[in-house]
């Protein structure tokens, strides 16, 4: 029983981060119909921002070697600030990699390339500035919380509980925003039918910016959380999440917000179920799901079917 509970906690806490990550993908996909390949890089930025804000020092290899902020914020404050900074980065990505294509009426698939270009720039910028070494966020920044909690006999890391709690909070806030606010409803309208939305007077450029902003905020927070629970394994560490996020996205259904959450939790749990002697194959779980879903039910668990227009 304890083992099962442990497994559940491990899986759900990883899955919650996947869900946060995939939500950013899905928000952008729902308004633009393309994948933002810079998303993994924005996630990475979030992790580094968090590290700097808690007072972490830059190593010896980058241009900014030895840099350290004169203050050290507690994690609960550093994380949302890092999310805001990541949102700003996402807005810049939208401005340089997406908007020019829209203004020129180019093939939307080109955004795959331009966003990747933006991602390459971001990742290498990080490398240039702070070097390629890995960093970790000390658990001490959580304050006086104990390192592990005992829940119904299972020993659970506090960090995992935090991951779950923060992710749950963000997901709830997001769904309240989408269903309850004016801008959230505008987002839904644009994702249903951009042309009609425009006719109804919805400023789709504004909605797209909002989608990117929130997407970047969530990615940045996810980056900070992973940095806390595992570590920041160098500038490239977001790419793996970026790819797994695709699996989450497809499993839940492209463009579906509840789908991204469900997909994240399922894949997190499935990865946690991979036995230790096969742990090398863990990374394939997400892609295996992805592949199967595309073949059996391309619209995903909660997505809408692809339209086949005549």
């Amino acid at each position, binding site marked *: 029983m304890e083992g099962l509970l442990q497994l559940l906690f491990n899986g759900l806490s990883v899955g919650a981060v996947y869900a946060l990550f995939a939500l950013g993908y899905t928000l952008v996909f729902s308004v633009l119909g393309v994948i933002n390949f810079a998303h993994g890089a924005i996630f990475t930025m979030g992790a580094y921002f968090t590290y700097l804000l808690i007072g972490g020092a830059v190593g010896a290899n980058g241009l900014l070697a030895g840099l350290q902020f004169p203050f050290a914020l507690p994690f609960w404050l550093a994380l949302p600030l890092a999310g805001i900074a990541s949102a700003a980065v996402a807005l810049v990505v939208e401005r340089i990699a997406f908007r020019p*294509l829209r203004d020129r009426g180019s093939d939307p698939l080109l955004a795959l390339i331009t966003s990747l*270009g933006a991602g390459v720039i971001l990742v290498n910028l990080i490398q240039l500035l702070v070097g390629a070494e890995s960093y970790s966020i000390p658990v001490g920044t959580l304050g006086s919380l104990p390192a592990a909690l005992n829940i119904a006999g299972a020993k659970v890391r506090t960090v995992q509980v935090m991951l779950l709690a923060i992710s749950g909070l963000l997901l709830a806030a997001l769904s309240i925003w989408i269903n309850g606010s004016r801008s959230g409803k505008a987002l839904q309208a644009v994702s249903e039918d951009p042309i009609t939305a425009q006719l109804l007077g919805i400023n789709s450029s504004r909605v797209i910016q909002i989608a990117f902003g929130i997407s970047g905020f969530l990615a940045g927070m996810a980056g900070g959380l992973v940095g806390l629970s595992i570590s920041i394994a160098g500038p490239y560490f977001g790419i793996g999440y970026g790819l797994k996020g695709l*699996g989450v996205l497809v499993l839940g259904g492209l463009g579906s917000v509840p789908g991204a959450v469900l997909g994240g939790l399922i894949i997190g749990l499935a990865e946690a179920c991979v036995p230790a002697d096969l742990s090398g194959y863990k990374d394939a779980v997400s892609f295996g799901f992805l592949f199967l879903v595309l073949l059996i039910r391309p619209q995903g668990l909660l997505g809408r079917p692809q339209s086949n227009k005549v």
Partner: protein
Amino acid sequence: MDAGLLEQMLLGALLGLSVYLPLRCGQLSLATPGFFAIGGTVAALLSTRVPALAGSGSTYPITSVLLEMALAALLTGVLALGLGRVVLRLRGIYLAIATIALVEILRVVTLNLEFTGGALGIFGIPQPFDSAAGYAAFTLALLALICWLCDRLEKNRPGRAMAAIRDDELAAASQGINTADTKLLAFVLSALVAGITGVVAAHFLNSWNAKLGNFDASITTLAFVVFGGSRTWLGPVFGGLLLTALPELLRPVGDLRLIVFGAVILVGPLFFPKGVITPELFKSFKRRIRGTPTAAAQGVKP
């Protein structure tokens, strides 16, 4: 120019062609690095584990390389035939994501299998050529052959069918074009080119590991085509040559080079939405080559 860099550029051009073939048919497949990795693994395994292929001379026989290429083509071709039937039912971004997943699954499996050398890969792949220049000459001949085949393909029945599917799949089917088979043909040809290229690359690089067929490679090779242009074979060749050379040519700017590379991928599609080599440019290029035979002898196209 450094022959080693030239060889890398030529391999880049071949990979560009591999991404281009399905894209010319309107299919955004990112499976090229997967088939490239299979080709490389086939070459690495055969040349290091099968003593009969090593020959008696000091260098590895070219006939053995050709045999590896044939086997790699057979394997990737059969695999693409089977996978293509399944994945080509997907459209647009869905096909792209499915092929990314294929490449990643393959990478993880290669990484974990004993006989592919795991994370370290396979070392000491024998050399059929003494110098990088030998590789470059061999690869140039291969590239020329494949360009010639692509040129013929484009001008004829399957090429027209591919272009029609890209413009409007439904209308193409209404003209009697077997769209499923045509897309499959493009996918299989793409796999063959990637597999054969993998064989050459494995020998050239001397070692082979799972990292060579990863997601980065998917996107870089796609960038070759998007940057160069996807309407004629010259586009991906141009894009592959230039973008492979770029990070090396930018070496003087040091650490900034990958940032500049990213900027090129970012800005390229904005200024050249159809790629640098548009069909009009291609036609005038061909006219110029026909007009001056000496230029043809020295030029890219044999």
